[in-house]
């Protein structure tokens, strides 16, 4: 794997790891408390 490819894959993984987690946190903040509670309890089950 060349240096460029390695960087690109790394950046994509960072996009998934940081970007998705942050965006989902934003969606959770924007959603109604009842829906957020339901999704949290569903996830914990």
């Amino acid at each position, binding site marked *: 794997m060349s240096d460029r490819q390695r960087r690109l894959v*790394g950046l994509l*993984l*960072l996009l998934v790891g*940081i970007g998705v987690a*942050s965006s989902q*946190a*934003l969606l*959770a*903040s924007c959603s109604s*408390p009842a829906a957020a509670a339901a999704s949290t309890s569903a996830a914990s089950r």
Partner: protein
Amino acid sequence: MRRLLLLLIFVLIVLAVAFVLSQSLWRWVRGEDEAPVEVPEEGAGPRAWPLLVLPLPAAVAAVIALAEGRLGLLVGDVLGYGLMLGGALLVRRERREGDLTIGSRWLRRWPPATVGGGLIALGSGVTAWLGAGHHPAIGVAFALVTLAGFHLAYGLELPLRHRPLGLGGYGEDALRRAAGSIAAIEQASRSIRQPELDARLSSIAALARQILQRVKDDPRDLWRARKFLNVYLDGVQRVVEGYASTHGQVATPELDQRFRHALDTVEAAFREQHQVLLERDIEDLDVQIEVLTRQLEREGIL
């Protein structure tokens, strides 16, 4: 309706930022420099701005959670964003100022970029767990994905204590390439035929040789001078060779001025690198003196 509007504004901001940054990102991935004569502020290679931009939705989430009075989400978002921001700033600071010395002696063994990568991974895991409401195991998965991405894009390094003592194949190869770069700089400086520039380039080459000699004498310095060996020297070689090839054909005072300014920056960076290696030697000596003093105190000699 209000939420739809918020989401629309957010999507528009993200699209605008993505459009502006994508071109810069493409240049970064292709390894192209924006200013070929100036030595870039953060050196060549991966830059730290994606680490500052990617967590921004978590900051917005924290503001919304605060406005809506949702404590659980607020704690998760603030904690996650704080960790990611702290890690990104640490990485950016190391990229700007070289190998830093931070915190206690224990912490100094760890390269700041590695500490930063760990904090960012932890932050993404916390954000996914407490901020987005995922299961803790999914939070761990997010952290691992982030850590893997950081390793590929920026590189994670071992702490000083666990680093190899010999130069090794990588070290010998790096030193050989560095010596080649210095020889190429000297060769190019001869073709410029300006006594003032020739003297300055000779001084820069001499400084570079001193740094190389220190690395040869103490292989632990290889890790401390890795950026100098892998990035700076290569960049200086390209700039000097580029100037030497264009200088004879076109006389542009502006280019001359920028080249002189670049040489100032390079000389300052090389002196700083040399100083860092000297200071580390003093620090190592300080540790040895402290150990010896404690040993003598234990044995009742002091």
